[in-house]
């Protein structure tokens, strides 16, 4: 069997080699994708230490389940699903410990988004890409974890309503109303941030 050039091998070649029990190809995969996995954990948890811990946990789980990976999706998609599920479990446990704020209870009950005025102008017009991303990040930080998670799973991970409902252990109707609220709230937050900048 020809020796694998780890540095220049494709993800698929590395995965195949790692599935045979070799750790060096897996180490290369970790090195290539660790930023993305950490970023997803951080965007969900908003805590650097927890994100670091859970992203490492995801790599451990990835190694343990590597033989089950059928390569029907990309390796990064598969790893991202692992870290998302770990983060969702963690957030559920965290939520059980914390007491909901009044605002959050109202958000969960629905109806707040209906009272928000419709914002038709684009609050991020003429903004640099980097600046715009930072602005979105600030606005996302102000959302509850349920709304933020639904939004990022749909917009950044491209997951359908059905997939999100399955991952978050809720109904499709709940996903739809959370997504609706998250979008409307995000629009209103971006406008507030723009007003703050103009002052």
């Amino acid at each position, binding site marked *: 069997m020809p020796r694998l050039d780890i540095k220049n091998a494709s993800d698929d070649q590395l995965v195949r080699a790692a599935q045979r029990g070799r*750790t060096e190809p897996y*180490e290369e995969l*970790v*090195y290539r994708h*660790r*930023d993305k996995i*950490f*970023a997803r954990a*951080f*965007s969900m948890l908003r805590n650097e230490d927890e994100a670091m811990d859970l992203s*490492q*946990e995801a*790599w*451990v789980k990835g*190694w*343990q389940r590597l033989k089950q990976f059928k390569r029907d999706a990309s390796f990064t998609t598969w790893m991202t699903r692992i870290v998302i599920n770990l983060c969702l479990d963690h957030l559920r446990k965290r939520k059980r410990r914390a007491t909901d704020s009044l605002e959050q209870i109202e958000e969960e009950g*629905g109806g707040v988004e*209906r009272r928000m005025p*419709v*914002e*038709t102008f*684009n609050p*991020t017009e003429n903004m640099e*890409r980097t600046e*715009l*991303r*930072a602005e*979105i*990040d600030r606005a996302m930080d102000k959302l509850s974890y349920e709304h933020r998670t639904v*939004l*990022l799973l*749909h*917009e*950044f991970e491209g997951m*359908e*309503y059905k997939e999100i409902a399955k991952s978050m252990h809720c109904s499709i*109707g709940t996903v*739809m*109303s959370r*997504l*609706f609220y998250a*979008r*409307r709230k*995000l*629009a209103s937050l*971006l406008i507030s941030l723009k007003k703050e900048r103009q002052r």
Partner: protein
Amino acid sequence: MQNEDRLKLQAWLDGELPVREASRVSNWVESNPEARELAKELRNVKVIMETGEVPLVMEDSREFYWNQIARRIDATEAVVHQPKPVHASSWMQWCRQWLVPVGGLAAIVVMISNVGTQPGEFQAPASDVGEEVHPSTQPIVAPRIPPAIEPSFAEPVINPEGEVSAEDVNVLNLNIPTDGNPNLQPRSERTIPSIENPKR
């Protein structure tokens, strides 16, 4: 606008509606100014989100990060490969459940039956002792079993008044040390205080 209509509008924007339903919502949005405004807002948010996320870059070195993961993998594999406690198979469990008690019971029965037999009660015939026996030539001789001793009970001596003598009744009056305990005194000496008249 009903909440259901708002969510349907959003599902239309996300491409989650079937073709026929999507075309119906599209017509409704075109004809309804309120729906048109809401669709514009939601579409704006979708466009903004396409900008993507703030990229994050980890500062830890490759070796440091990988070593942490490798240590965790080793720790979990050590737990997985720990020798599991040996569980008895179902056959062994069946043996423990039934054969051991039955075997124990059988042993007790054998012991009891041996206790009832006096040692040396069955003696081999004198001719068999110390002699070489040839099964092919010697006829099989059944061992002599002594006749069973019939149990004999002494009849109590009954006097002409129909009373049994004291020696026969007091068979359980053994000389057990009582250490002054009234409950262990012979029955004839015990006095039971009356409940009605405790002074008696």
